[in-house]
């Protein structure tokens, strides 16, 4: 495999890792506060639809994203009501939210667009286009030179190849997602909010007796989770793809959950695990590369299951122990 092919695969990995990363960090906030969220998938799906729909009507991808965030936050509020206010079963609530989103998106899509549960294709400013970083070879250079972009990159030096192919040319949401990692780390480990958030996921009674509201903290975590899932969904339908199709999250919410466990609920590890799972997905699209590399044919179906298998192995404690926040999934009931 040549260097450029490697760069292409990595480039695809980054694109595919982005929604995983956003959802994974979303889950991180929620679970760090002690609210388990298996409804990442549903929130992402709802956001994907409403982003695409709003972007289609407004012609503006940002407006689309706001609508997506709105939808995702609405579902997050339902989860908050169920798991914080009414102290219900967080897992069951997550399951319900996934189905609610799966059903509602198709129902509304059919009602609005009558295209069998999808939105019309998005074009122009209704999508988040790639951003050309300075000095990178991008489509505009290709246009100016009147030559195919791929050839121009192929002829460039390795450093320029690396920069133009892998670093440059992503949608703004990719860079935003990557920025969210250090931001989350900083928020979690360097601020008062982060300290309280981590504390409430470990021992809500400690936070309560210290005079801080457990309910408020958990709601804010759940809402942040909603916002990030909203961005993840918007990315799927308005950046990665050009419109919404039925069930387009395709289990990404659960891979994100797997990545979160794999990352042991830490933001920087989350980046690495999402990139790894993104790489798996990229390789699924290019089985020829693995065949070239290893000399035998790899079953792509089985490759797709790798994140899940890895997560089970991690959960079983065979590679390091994944210990979730102590108060996970437990509603807080005041007692002396």
């Amino acid at each position, binding site marked *: 495999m040549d260097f450029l092919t490697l760069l292409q695969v990595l480039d695809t990995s980054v694109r595919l890792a982005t929604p995983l990363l956003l959802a994974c960090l979303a889950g991180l906030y929620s679970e760090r506060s002690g609210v388990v969220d298996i409804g990442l998938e549903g929130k992402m799906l709802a956001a994907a639809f409403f982003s695409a729909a709003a972007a289609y009507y407004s012609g503006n991808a940002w407006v689309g994203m706001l609508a997506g965030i709105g939808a995702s936050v609405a579902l997050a509020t339902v989860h908050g009501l169920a798991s914080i206010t009414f102290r*219900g079963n967080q897992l069951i609530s997550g399951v319900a939210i996934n189905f609610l989103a799966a059903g509602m998106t198709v*129902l509304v899509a*059919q009602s609005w667009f009558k295209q069998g549960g999808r939105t019309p294709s998005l074009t122009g400013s209704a999508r988040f286009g790639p951003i050309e970083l300075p000095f990178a070879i991008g489509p505009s250079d290709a246009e100016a030179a009147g030559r195919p972009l791929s050839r121009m990159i192929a002829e460039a030096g390795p450093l320029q190849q690396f920069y133009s192919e892998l670093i440059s040319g992503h949608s703004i949401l990719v860079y935003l997602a990557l920025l969210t990692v250090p931001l989350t780390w900083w928020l979690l480990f360097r601020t008062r909010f982060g300290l309280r958030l981590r504390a409430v996921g470990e021992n809500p009674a400690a936070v309560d007796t210290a005079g801080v509201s457990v309910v408020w903290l958990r709601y804010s975590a759940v809402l942040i989770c909603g916002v990030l899932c909203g961005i993840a969904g918007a990315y799927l339908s308005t950046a990665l793809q050009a419109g919404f199709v039925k069930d387009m999250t395709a289990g990404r919410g659960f891979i994100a959950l797997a990545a979160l466990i794999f990352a042991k609920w830490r933001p920087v590890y989350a980046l690495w695990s999402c990139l790894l799972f993104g790489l798996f997905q990229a390789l699924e699209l290019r089985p020829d590369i693995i065949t070239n590399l290893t000399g035998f044919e790899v079953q792509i179906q089985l490759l797709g299951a790798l994140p899940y298998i890895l997560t089970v192995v991690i959960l079983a404690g065979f590679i390091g122990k994944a210990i979730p926040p102590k108060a996970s999934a437990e509603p807080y009931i005041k007692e002396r």
Partner: protein
Amino acid sequence: MDKMPKWADIVLIPLISLFLAAFFSALVILAIGESPIEALKLMIDGALMRSSGWGYTLYYATNFLFTGLAVSVAFHARLFNIGGEGQAMIGGLGVALVCLYVPWPHWSLAILGASVGAACFGALWALIPAYLQAKRGSHIVITTIMFNFIAAALLNYVLVELLRPVGAMDPASAKFAAATHLPSFQDMFSTAETPMFRGAPANVTFFLALAACVFVWVLIWRTRLGYEIRAFGQSETGAKYAGISPVKITVVAMLISGGLAGMMSVNTTMGETERLILNSTEGAGFIGIAVALMGRNHPFGVFLAAILFGFLYQGGAELALWTSIPRELIVVIQALVILFTGALDNMVREPVEKIFIAMRRRNT
């Protein structure tokens, strides 16, 4: 004293939750510009007013009976088995292998063989998450979710690479032998002059599902094992004191749960498609969660809830046929049922409890 009478707990609360789910579903139908009343009429018409409609309703109900029972058995041991979908898929593989590679002389033997195959494969698929929960504390909800995806990948692989007949294009196994054909309701109940259940997929597996209800009822409320499963589900410390092994109960309850989920495939794979296809479960494993929650984990409740969901499923298909409301309406209703009967239980329960306490106070 209990905060409210038992009948309120097992009848009133689920009814209120169901009403709430129905109310919000109606709102959704209104919002997409259709009439809920018309929709309900259509659903009743299509699912209940003709015998063929019933044939579909009961076919779906059969699936939900198995998966609903599967979820309830695990719930009794306070285990949340979200893996019914994957267990049913792998159960289908068991059915297919039994039907493809054993030369059955008669369907009555074949259904027994297929049930054993389905149950064993489904149970096997539940075994690993169960073992990991019992021995290593890996959260069973997460592992069973993961096992759903792994099952889908595995089934895809097996169908594409191993079971697909040479030259065939779609990922499916070969057709099963004719001897394994299960009598459908049409075969069983039609007479020369009055055809019944025409074209409907409901088949003899429905009675197998009813037998499974009785089996689960006897198991949970009449046997030592059921006694131990419920005790463990209520109090793990208590179970330890009584010498009930948490590892054993976790594994056994999940094996039974997985086996029941797997047996759903007898209905779909053997009773309907007569070959193994990629997506034969169609989310029935998940509907089992709604069915179990609504049925309060009691086989009779599960039976009623399964019929209700069978009706919704068939009615939803009718709606999709005659109106612009897509089948996904059912998924929304299912989600609302899970939400209100499961996650928001306290929202419904607390006001009702307060009313009962207030009434009692006034009476004394």
